[in-house]
């Protein structure tokens, strides 16, 4: 067992160190990006500075340009840290230049979408389009009879109205879209709630299995009959609950009992096992993990479950960590 533990730990350590190194590499900024951003800003502001602009603004802009030159020089000399400093300085200056240029306009800070009067409702339409696309995917998932064709037509109309700059008409069309979307949303949620009940029951069943293991361990460890009695009563209440809200309520009560008697120690392990199970299920439908690796992972998971049921939490934990680390590599 010790040999296995050492081996598992070695894999774990090396994978974590390697993983950490990868993250560090990814987190580094590509210096050429900085130059692109800053030059784009410079070009835009240069275009906006005119004879009416104040001397202060013009001087600030020159200072910004100097910082860009220094940035380029630093990049040529491969002085990355210095380049980053010049980038931040240049951007700080350009921000000030932008503020100076707009000083004649309203200086009052306002939450953009709350107060700004945006004539063109393109953003509103785009937001609705994304939301409706989301609902379409869900409606398809539930095989609902919701017909989106009217909404699709309205989107086409609104887009055309915006192109033709008929913004008032577009706003009315978007208002119609919103109204229909609210109804569709309710309809889809109605479908979803019907299936939620069965999902809630399935979840309660899994929770009951976990609770059974907890009660069994509590008995083996010789915990007081009072605690065991409370857990068994809670178990009965949960098994008779059918409504999703009732299930949540009962589980919250069980969690409260567990916390009261410090029985939550192994919840984390149980949760992790469930999470790993789901990751494995997802990976089994992809080509990221070979069949042999998949079978090995499933066997390890069974071993972990066995250790858990036998109360060997340390061993289960170590195996679980190594398996989780291994599977992480194959996820997103």
């Amino acid at each position, binding site marked *: 067992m*010790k040999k296995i533990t*050492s081996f598992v*730990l*070695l894999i*774990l350590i090396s994978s974590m*160190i390697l993983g950490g190194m990868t993250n560090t590499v*990814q*987190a580094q900024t590509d210096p050429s*990006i900085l130059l*692109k951003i800053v*030059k*784009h*800003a410079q*070009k835009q502001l240069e275009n906006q500075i005119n004879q009416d602009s104040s001397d202060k603004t013009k001087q600030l802009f020159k200072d910004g340009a100097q910082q860009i030159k220094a940035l380029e020089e630093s990049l040529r000399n491969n002085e990355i840290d210095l380049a*980053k400093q010049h980038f931040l300085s240049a*951007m700080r200056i*350009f*921000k000030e*230049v*932008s503020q100076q240029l*707009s*000083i004649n*306009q*309203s*200086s009052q*800070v*306002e*939450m*953009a*979408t*709350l107060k*700004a009067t945006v004539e*063109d409702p393109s*953003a509103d339409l785009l*937001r609705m389009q*994304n*939301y409706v696309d*989301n609902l379409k995917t869900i409606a398809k998932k539930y095989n609902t009879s919701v017909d989106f064709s009217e909404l699709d037509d309205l989107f086409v109309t609104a887009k055309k109205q915006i192109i033709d700059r008929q913004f008032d008409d577009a706003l009315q069309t978007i208002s119609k879209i919103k109204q229909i979307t609210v109804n569709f949303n309710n309809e889809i949620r109605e479908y*979803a709630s019907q*299936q*939620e009940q069965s*999902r*809630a029951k399935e*979840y309660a069943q899994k*929770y009951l299995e976990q609770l059974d293991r907890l009660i069994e361990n509590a008995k083996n460890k010789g915990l007081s009959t009072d605690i065991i009695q409370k857990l068994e009563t809670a178990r009965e209440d949960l098994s008779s609950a059918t409504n999703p809200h009732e*299930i*949540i309520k009962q*589980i*919250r009560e069980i969690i409260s009992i567990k916390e009261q008697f410090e029985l939550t120690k192994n*919840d*984390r392990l149980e*949760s992790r096992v*469930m*999470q790993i199970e*789901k*990751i494995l299920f997802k990976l089994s439908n*992809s*080509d990221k993990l070979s069949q042999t690796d998949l079978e090995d992972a499933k066997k390890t998971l069974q071993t972990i479950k066995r250790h858990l049921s036998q109360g060997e939490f340390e061993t289960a934990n170590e195996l679980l960590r190594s398996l989780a680390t291994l599977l*992480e590599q194959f996820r*997103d």
Partner: protein
Amino acid sequence: MNPELVPVHREESIREDGMLFVRTDGILETMVKAPLILAGLIIVAVVMPLQTSFSSTRTLELVIYSDGSTHVSTQIDVDPLEPDFELDLFGKSIDNFVAVGDAGFLLSEEIIEDKAIIDTFGSSSIIIDYDIHDLVSKEGRVWTFSFDSPSDYTVLMPKNSVIVGISGLPNNMEIVDEQTKLNLTTGLSEINYIFGTPINPTISDESPFNYVNAAVIVGAIIAAVIGGILMLKRKQQKSLPSIIQTESISEKQIETKSIDTETIFNFRPEMREDDKEIVKFISNNGGQALESELRKKFLQPRTTMWRAVKRLERLGVIEIAKKDLQNLVKLKKDLEEEK
């Protein structure tokens, strides 16, 4: 785990000369293993990655609209043993909230101020989408996006916006549909931007369109020269029937076109239905599309779409090229055997 050496069969080992013998065959192993395990446990405790813990954000993507509202899309790992999950929203002005659990099931939620209680019922991963109006403010013509992020994230800036101030260093930047997309790190970031006026691009190495424009101009000149020569020749050889030229042009057009979708589906009957939809979209899009466009169109997470694209590549239906650091998915002109 215990590094202490224990004399084995002590009574038997003490001989007449009073020497104490201990079993030595496990000493080396124990001496090496004990510190190793200890060091391992310490390193594990220190470097245990966040993503393996519960309620960790796997992805966080923000899209800023032109009116300053922001779309938030996030994938979060949650505790499958908990019946619900309390999500901290990034503000109180929330619209169009949708939470989806494992296998794409819609999850019920209750939003109270800047918190959402989502009934997860055993889901281990949830995807959340919503619009928020609290992240962008405006002073004069300068817009400010201010966000304290719990994880690394991406932000897609509005079209025609120009970043004129930024408080931190982005990890990466790419252009998606003429919009700037930044990769930023955990913590507070502030981005100031304005809506720019069209300017003549002078940073020639930045824009792929310069190459395209140049290619078009050069191509047009070459075409004009060739056209001129051909016309001169045609005048000289009037006997050439014009129909041949028309045919050769249409042949060229066919050559440049990719195969129609029905042919692809007939050749690849094993192709999944959802993959067929992707192929149809690419075909209707002129035979090519960015992977990001496909994700947007089919509302799929990055990994799912990547897998789909890889599947199609293996089937020999598409090829993947790079464009502005993005994956450009192109329908192949001729089908090849499965790799």
